[in-house]
Structures are given as structure tokens and as C-alpha cells.
């Protein structure tokens, strides 16, 4: 099984679920130059992040090259323990990844 690019932690407290995640991604803006060749490093960044709980859309994030490498995202929603969370992202080069977890 390939390692996921998403690390996630989801805890429920007082009816509110706090979801924290770290996504491994270079988030290249496309304006940096390779030190050795002098050529531009092509833009490679996440364009959209989707979060669903029990199949219901909770959050959609539209990102650009302005977000730093290995982005951290945290959000809250009204929910309960045992909720099935699904986080997925896609980037401008057509790559994507997703991860499912259960709220503790």
C-alpha cells in the first residue's frame, strides 16, 4: 500500500469535530528557478481540497501557488464520534490523493 500524502487527526469535543491535517506537497509556484540549470521549476500546487463527513460535503478549499509547501489545514464542523471523514485533493498537474478516517 502506497503511503498517503495526507496525515490527519480528527477529534470530537462538545459536539464539534476539529479536523487537523498535514498534506505533503511541493506547492511550487512556478516562478522559482532551479539553482543548477537556471530553468524555471514548473508550477505544481494543489488547486482543490474537499472534505466530506458521512458523504456530506463539509469544506471545499480553492488553493493557489500562494500556499506554502506541505500545507497544514484545520477546520471544525458540528459532528460526532465515529463520523466517516474523507479528505481528497487535486492539483494543477492532474495528480490527486485522498484519505479516509474515523472521528475519535
Amino acid at each position, binding site marked *: 500500500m502506497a503511503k498517503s500524502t495526507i*496525515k490527519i487527526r480528527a477529534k470530537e469535543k462538545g459536539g464539534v469535530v476539529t479536523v*487537523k491535517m498535514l498534506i505533503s506537497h511541493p506547492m511550487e509556484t512556478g516562478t522559482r528557478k532551479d539553482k543548477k540549470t537556471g530553468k524555471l521549476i514548473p508550477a505544481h500546487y494543489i488547486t482543490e481540497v474537499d472534505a466530506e463527513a458521512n458523504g456530506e460535503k463539509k469544506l471545499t478549499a480553492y488553493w493557489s501557488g500562494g500556499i506554502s509547501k*506541505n500545507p*497544514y489545514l484545520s477546520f471544525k464542523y458540528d459532528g460526532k464520534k465515529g463520523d466517516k471523514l474523507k479528505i481528497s485533493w487535486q492539483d494543477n498537474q492532474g495528480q490527486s490523493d485522498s484519505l479516509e478516517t474515523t472521528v475519535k
Partner: protein
Amino acid sequence: MEEHSVKAKLSAIAAALMVSLSMAFPAAVMASPEDDLKAFREYFKKRFPNVPFEDFVNGVYALDPAAREQWEAIEEFPPYEINIEKGKDLFHKPFKNGKTMASCFPDYKQGIKQNYPYFDTKSGKVKTLELEINECREKNGEKPFPWGKGPIADVSAYLAYLSRGKKIDVKVPNKAAEAEYDKGKHFFYAKRGQLNLACADCHVYYAGYHIRADLLSPALGQVTHFPVYRSKWGGLGTLHRRYSGCNKQVRAKPFPMQGPEYRALEYFHTYMSNGLPINGPGARK
């Protein structure tokens, strides 16, 4: 007979004089490492009376609660996790001759970082963990890793992780070792660079004060979290990488990493954290 007893009396008086003289002039004897350690700890205890001894391993995060909160948020997804995994793979990857690094560090599972650096009487050298990692590679016909960052830091991170919680136990067993310890101590307290600052200036006398927007970390417990993931570096680096950077920051020409100066400095610097637990690899700003 009489001559003998006179001589005996004279030599007895001479001996007594010498003993009393040496007791009256003890200045030639330098303080021992144990005395230095005691004085070091007492100084920091007095400076930061509300910081428990073991908390010094967290550096500025033991001093600033707001910074600590941010640091703890980062530690939820530790940035050095990938490095530990990389280090583990490198440590167990067989060399061309079939052996692995485990053959050079047979006790690695129990944690070994707390015993470094140590004085190797046979070679007369201070041995640091990174030095021995590369010696292991060379002994087994492999090219050594470059110092400072990359694979050397990853392997060091893996070994540090396995040593977490173990109390630092650096020994100064003999006169030759003490000479190296003293070299390190001298380095620590000597002014250098265009800014004419000693390590001690920032990390002893002005520890806890601000340097622009940052806080100066206390020298007590300073080495325990290495190798360190620094947000500034966007990656993992070794202790000598930081020594190099610190020297550049006071506009002094840095010494070579794993050269005699930094190894002696690491020897003194780590000895001053004896008794504190390893908490590496760490994450810092």
C-alpha cells in the same frame, strides 16, 4: 648517622613546605568539569526559577507560552517524521559487503545517543555520533555522507529517536579528555567574529532576552533536541550545521563541521546537559 638524620629532617621539612605551598596557591588548578556543571546548572536555575530542570530541553518553548502553543501545534504532525523513516531505511540498508550500520552500533535499539560524544583514548579524538556514522560507512567500503544535512542528519535523527528519554551521560575520564573538554569550554566562552560575541554571550548571559523577534535559548539543555528540523532551513540539520550558522551570524568564518574545534565544543556543550533527557529529533522555528 647524624648526617642521615639531618638529611632526613631537611627533606621532611622541604616536603612539608611544598605541601603547604601548594595548598596556599591552588590557582594553577582549573575547575573540574563537575564543578563547571554544578555552576552552570545553578546559574540557570537562578535565572529561570520557574522552569523545571527537565523542561530546559525545550529551549525557548520552556520560556514563552505563546511560542510553545504554536510549537505544540506543529508537533502534532512532526516535520521530522519523514526524516526518521529515511534514517531508519538508511541504517538498515546493506552495504556492498552485505553488512548494515547495525554492525557498527550493535546496541542501537536501547538508545545510544545519550553517550555521545565520548573521548576515544586510543585515537585521542572526541567521537561524535555523526563522525562514527561516517567512520562506519568508510570502514565498510562506502563513501561517507556529507556533513550538516541530508542522509547524515536522517540517520542521526533515527538514532536520536531511539534514544528519546535517555539521560545524557557524557564522561570526561582522563587528563587527555579533559584537555579536549577545556578546548570546547574555551571556545564557548571566547569572543569571535566581527560582532565580537561568544556563545556564552547570547546563550548564558542574555538567555531569555530578545534578539530582534526571537528569544535566545539557554545553553542548558540546548543539545538534547538535535538533529533539528528548523523552519528556517525547511529541513533537518545537525548540531554542527547550527554551530556553523551561529558563527556566520556573528560574522565569524565557520570552522569545518566535524573538525576538531566543533567536536571539542560539542563535548563541552553536551557535558553541560548531562542528566537531561534526549528529546531529538526536534522542531524549531
